[in-house]
């Protein structure tokens, strides 16, 4: 009997503590490469770059597509291309290392194990990210997996993919403004004042909602909720209580400062125009 000793099937237990944080650039990159794929390919794969942090969080910062060929039983990935691109990216930002790979399309297929294996040679625990571009189930499914090998004794059997938690807080995309990113064409970037106007309107809406809620609770139409009540109390308490005189003085001082600077700036501009006229109009006799 060849098989002796450990014929134990190792199955990992419990959730893995890895959490993934996705930057929006990666998502956009993946979509772009999916749109630009060759006609024969059904899906696109590529490398993920990012960093591992000490507490187990993986930040996925950047990505690039890697050409590959897939058929029913074989997968060929262009390794040279992958290496070259990685080197090029390293020259720009040395902190980003290979942390895994991505593929479009839902779910995990058989050939993925091979690709996972290949990436496993580059980094110890590669993350596999799937982005469902076909919108099956009418939902945008973005999932990340870590794999653990299943071994039967010493022989590797298969790789099991575990889903890990993915933090999709797209902070940078928020900075840009979702309005700008949602539409297919935005005609004009919002200027400073327009943006501020929008923000103040939203603030006003929020305050209206809250005041309506409070009114409703007082009249007894809605059941009071302790947690919300406490939040509201905290928020209102965080407005600093300043003596009215002191506040007026503070306010007036700041307004005067700003007006002074504004006046100075406009004066400078007028002076520049004047100087321009004088300089070029001067005649040397």
């Amino acid at each position, binding site marked *: 009997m060849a098989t002796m000793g450990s014929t134990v099937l190792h199955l990992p237990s419990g959730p893995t503590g890895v959490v993934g944080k996705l930057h929006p650039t990666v*998502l*956009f990159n993946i*979509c772009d490469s999916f749109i630009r794929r060759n006609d024969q390919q059904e899906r696109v794969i590529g490398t993920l770059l990012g960093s591992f942090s000490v507490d187990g969080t993986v930040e996925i910062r950047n990505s690039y597509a890697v*050409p590959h060929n897939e058929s029913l039983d074989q997968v060929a990935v262009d390794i040279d*291309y992958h290496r*070259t691109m990685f080197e090029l990216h390293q020259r720009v930002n040395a902190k980003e290392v290979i942390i895994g790979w991505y593929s479009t399309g839902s779910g995990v297929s058989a050939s993925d194990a091979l690709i996972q294996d290949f990436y496993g040679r580059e980094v110890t625990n590669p993350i596999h990210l799937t982005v469902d571009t076909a919108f099956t189930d009418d939902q945008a499914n973005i999932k990340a997996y870590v794999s653990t090998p299943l071994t039967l004794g010493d022989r590797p059997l298969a790789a099991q993919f575990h889903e890990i938690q993915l933090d999709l807080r797209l*902070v940078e995309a928020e900075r840009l403004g979702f309005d700008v990113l949602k539409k297919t064409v*935005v005609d004009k970037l919002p200027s400073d004042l327009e943006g501020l106007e929008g923000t103040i309107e939203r603030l006003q809406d*929020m305050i209206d909602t809250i005041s309506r809620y409070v009114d409703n609770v007082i009249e007894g139409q809605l059941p009071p909720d302790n947690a919300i009540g406490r939040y509201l109390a905290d928020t209102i308490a965080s407005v600093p209580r300043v003596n009215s005189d002191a506040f007026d003085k503070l306010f007036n001082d700041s307004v005067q400062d700003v007006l002074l600077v504004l006046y100075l700036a406009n004066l400078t501009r007028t002076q520049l125009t004047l100087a321009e006229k004088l300089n070029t109009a001067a005649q040397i006799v």
Partner: protein
Amino acid sequence: MTTTSTPMRSFAQAASAEEIVVPSRVVQIDGLVALKIIKHCKECMPALVTGQLLGLDIGSILEVTNCFPFPSRGGEEEDEVEADGANYQLEMMRCLREVNVDNNTVGWYQSTYMGSFQTVELIETFLNYQENIKRCVCIIYDPLRSGQGVLALKALKLSDSFMELYRTQVFIGEKLREKNMTWKDIFEEIPVKISNSVLVSALMTELESDAPASQCDFDRLVLSTNPFMEKNLEFLIECMDDLSMEQQKFQYYYRNLSRQQVQQQSWLQKRRAENAARRLSGEELLPEEDPSNPIFKTLPEPSRLDSYLITNQIANYCGQVNGFAGQSLSKMYLMDAFHQD
């Protein structure tokens, strides 16, 4: 997509006709490019970084569909850096070609610190690019201002008249008056549009969080105005110093010029007196001009390019202060209203 309709011409005609370069009216940036630029510039703050823009040039719209950053120079030999940079670019473009990304360079982007980007290097880079590409654009991104909730992304290009003038390398008062060029005419700003593919917009619509306020709003409502204003004013004052130095150069030149003219006049008078004396004594007349005399040497007028650029920068700072002051005033009045209740 609008296509300009041209009458049917024979191939020979089309080949021999001169290409008319239509000025680009709009720059259409992909959301992907905007995000990548933001990410790259923010990561390398406070160092200033640059990168290349790739895209398509169609009609009056310049589409930018992808970009890649340039590696930052680290204090190496000049030659190495040059060769490396070119190598990097070629490799990157080749790799991107394989995944069907548009391989066409349409310009470059750079980050700036508080809007101080008008330098001679910018102009030279523009001219370098212009030699190879008909219409190129430079996108300037200011990560500091974007920290206040505004997307400070601008598309610039050199105006044609300025480019012609620069080729002649002459910037004296006469020439500028001829062309009617003021400091405003150096750079032209092109309006920017952002476009996204349908897939991306679908994904974003799904992923948008339902919170009523976003990070953008929080950034905008920050009340502290002092740091930004202070830095702006600091830069403004520095620029003023530079401008006054330039003015002094001009004054020096004018003073020298007038002194020289006085000298010329006195020399001429002496010559005339001498000639009159010689005429009386019947000798040869001396020529009234003497080109070898150093007082007749024409003084070179200092170039006005630097002062133009500085003036441009000052105007930029003033504009920024204006915008920012408007915002902070509204925020302060808001705070006031809060307090009164």
